[in-house]
């Protein structure tokens, strides 16, 4: 790639200047701060993974006393919260700001607001982390009541969510400014995807915000005695399933819009990409009951309706397979492939940015298939809360999402730091180790689950039960944990090396598409936000209101007038 001199391009109306390709100092600190917090949280969360794998394996039954986190369920809470909630959220906000600013060629509407969002999230993180580390919030990252955590845990999580709301409002304001100045133009695909992601996230997070602010926080402060456990679970999973798409869409943004550039080809179909993100925005929320198939207080009819729609949300991922495979075929042909399938292996297998994303895609094949199985209504009875589910989400969020984010990191970090990636070979090795480790981990946890091993259980603890059929698979998961541990150490060697020890200057370019397609094939309906807001509100009322109503009994249940448990 040719190095490009920083060029200044002024937007037509407001006269503000934003450099076309080179990143600027304030941007580096702003994006860098998000990535720093994400990696700091991950550094603890990621190490607690192998610790648990070792502790659950009969060959080890590790009984070491860590200075903190010696209590298995405390470590498990920290692992989930730090990796799946904190690392992801900070990385998503940081990378989304980066993509929006670069693609639209303009700074965020308000940098002050974006920094306020960052500090809200950071203070929230510290409050939740304080509660977890002091052992006052060992409630796991699903925090089902009536088990209670210290109030700082709930308020901290609420602040993280409110912080994302401020940030996403800023992104939408930036987009609407751009929209006014560019009538008739399509927004670049990457930005379209991020807008879809934020619209979906805002809607979904209302559920958990209501649960935390009106049910859990008052209970933890002693304002109410008890709460409706089933309703809390419904509100949580209104949020919980879209949450996994909130993680996934930024990975898709990388696959759809960054990876083609990194491979030197064009995306096969921009329009079908838009269809995918639109479908994810709409269909990822009204399907959350597939997490509640074995809950007693949700009607079978509601469970079945959500099962049907869950199959619809598989469609965007199946469309993605075609679009990306066709794009990778272009890449392979460019690298000399001539046969029917040889484009598959004529790819840059030594480039850590690419390999990490390929690893994510390979793991997502397994994550997607196991996900369809989990969602299959009655089949879920055989799988729910077994280690099968752990295998599933370690190939999705711990596989597709994590590996793609690390690929993005290896691409963005040299740009933000201005230095080339340190020990490129180590970064590549890190990606292969993670891919191999997670394939073994996912497979062994899945198999253990089919043999009846249950998740979230301290198998080295007093009185635990491990069957003979399960033991070898748990041992194999500990072996995978060892590979993943080496991979995690390599990751931080590369990151710290790039930040402090890399000497060579990197090219200061951010090659992201700055405009959408000009042809007639991308109809303007994709950006008819009024229409999509109505569709989102309507579909969720249709799909979720019956679920809530089936769980609430105003005559006999928790919400009945005069129930002493309801309020005091």
């Amino acid at each position, binding site marked *: 790639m040719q190095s490009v001199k920083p060029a200044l391009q002024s937007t037509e109306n407001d006269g503000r200047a934003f450099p076309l390709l080179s990143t600027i100092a304030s941007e580096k600190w702003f994006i860098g701060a998000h990535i720093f917090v994400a990696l700091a949280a991950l550094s603890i969360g990621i190490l607690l993974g192998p610790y648990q794998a070792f502790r659950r394996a009969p060959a080890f039954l590790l009984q070491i006393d860590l200075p903190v986190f010696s*209590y298995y*369920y405390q470590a498990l809470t920290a692992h989930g919260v730090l990796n799946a909630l904190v690392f992801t959220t900070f990385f998503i906000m940081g990378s989304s700001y980066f993509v929006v600013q670069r693609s639209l060629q303009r700074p965020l509407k308000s940098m002050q607001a974006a920094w306020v969002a960052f500090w809200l999230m950071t203070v929230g993180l510290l409050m939740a982390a304080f509660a977890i580390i002091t052992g006052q919030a060992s409630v796991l990252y699903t925090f*089902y*009541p*009536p*088990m209670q955590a210290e109030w700082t845990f709930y308020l901290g999580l609420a602040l993280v969510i409110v912080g994302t709301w401020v940030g996403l409002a800023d992104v939408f304001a930036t987009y609407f400014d751009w929209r006014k100045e560019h009538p008739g133009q399509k927004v670049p695909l990457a930005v379209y995807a991020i807008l879809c992601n934020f619209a979906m996230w805002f809607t979904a997070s209302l559920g958990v915000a209501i649960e935390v602010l009106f049910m859990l926080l008052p209970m933890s402060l002693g304002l109410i005695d008890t709460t*409706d*456990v*089933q309703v809390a*679970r419904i509100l949580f999973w209104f949020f919980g399933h879209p949450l996994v798409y909130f993680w996934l869409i930024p990975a898709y943004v990388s696959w759809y819009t960054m990876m083609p550039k990194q491979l030197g080809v064009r995306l*096969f*179909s921009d*329009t079908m990409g838009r269809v995918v993100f639109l479908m994810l925005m709409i269909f990822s929320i009204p399907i959350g009951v597939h997490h*509640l*198939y*074995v*809950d*007693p*207080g*949700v*009607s*079978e009819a509601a*469970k079945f309706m959500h*099962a049907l729609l869950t*199959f619809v949300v*598989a*469609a965007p991922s*199946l*469309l993605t397979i*075609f*679009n990306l495979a*066709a794009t990778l075929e272009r890449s392979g042909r460019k690298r000399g492939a001539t046969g029917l399938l040889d484009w598959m292996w004529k790819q840059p297998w030594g480039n850590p940015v690419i390999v990490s994303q390929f690893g994510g895609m390979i793991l997502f094949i397994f994550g997607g298939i196991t996900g*369809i199985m989990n969602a*299959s*209504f*009655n*089949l*879920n*009875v*055989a799988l*729910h*809360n*077994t280690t099968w589910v752990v295998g599933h989400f370690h190939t999705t969020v711990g596989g597709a999402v994590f590996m793609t984010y690390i690929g993005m990191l290896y691409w963005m970090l040299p740009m933000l730091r201005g230095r080339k990636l340190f020990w490129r070979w180590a970064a590549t090795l890190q990606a292969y180790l993670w891919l191999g480790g997670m394939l073994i981990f996912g497979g062994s946890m899945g198999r253990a689950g089919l043999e*009846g091993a*249950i*998740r*979230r*259980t*301290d*198998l080295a*603890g*007093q*009185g*635990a*039960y491990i*069957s003979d059929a399960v033991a070898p698979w748990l041992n194999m998961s500990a072996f995978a944990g060892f590979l993943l541990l080496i991979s995690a150490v390599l990751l931080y060697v590369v990151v710290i090396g790039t930040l402090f020890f890399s000497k060579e200057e990197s090219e200061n370019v951010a090659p992201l598409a700055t405009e959408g397609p000009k042809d007639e*094939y991308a*109809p303007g309906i994709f950006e008819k936000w009024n229409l999509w807001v109505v569709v989102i509100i309507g579909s969720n009322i249709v799909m979720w209101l019956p679920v809530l109503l089936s769980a609430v009994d105003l005559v*006999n249940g*928790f919400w009945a007038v005069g129930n002493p448990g309801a309020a005091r």
Partner: protein
Amino acid sequence: MHIERYEKLWIYAFVIMLAVFVAALMAGAILFNVRVPGSAGLINPANLDETAFANPGIHDMGDGNYEVYMVARMWSFQPSEIVVPEGAHVTFYVTSADVTHGFIIEHHNANLEVLPGVIGVTNTTFNTPGTFKLQCHEYCGRGHQMMHIDIIVEETEVALAANEE
């Protein structure tokens, strides 16, 4: 909107695939009666003593049908052991006296979230003799891993012999 020819074929293919999946799970539910568990009503967890859960245990309903009333609390199940003959069809009514618990039986399609305030109901048939663990599968505090009981399925001859003595 333009969609490439091979992409159209791919879309037809996966729509058919997903339709087959849905048909399969509906066939399982309708033809083979493999259902998701449901509710047998709401209950006040503070007043279990005034309900059918006052005396948790197994009730023989005749013709190989049994009903089990079961209470989960930190960190035990009541009853603490269940013995049934081979071929027994058992309906479980399960509720919690305190926090959220879980309910899963090894190698059987019985899986429930056990919530305070709701009576969960599920059923399964024990066709194979042996001992199967019934475990709590939802984190419920420090002693969660201790929360498992045995379901002993006796061979029919043994059960008959025991009755004759």
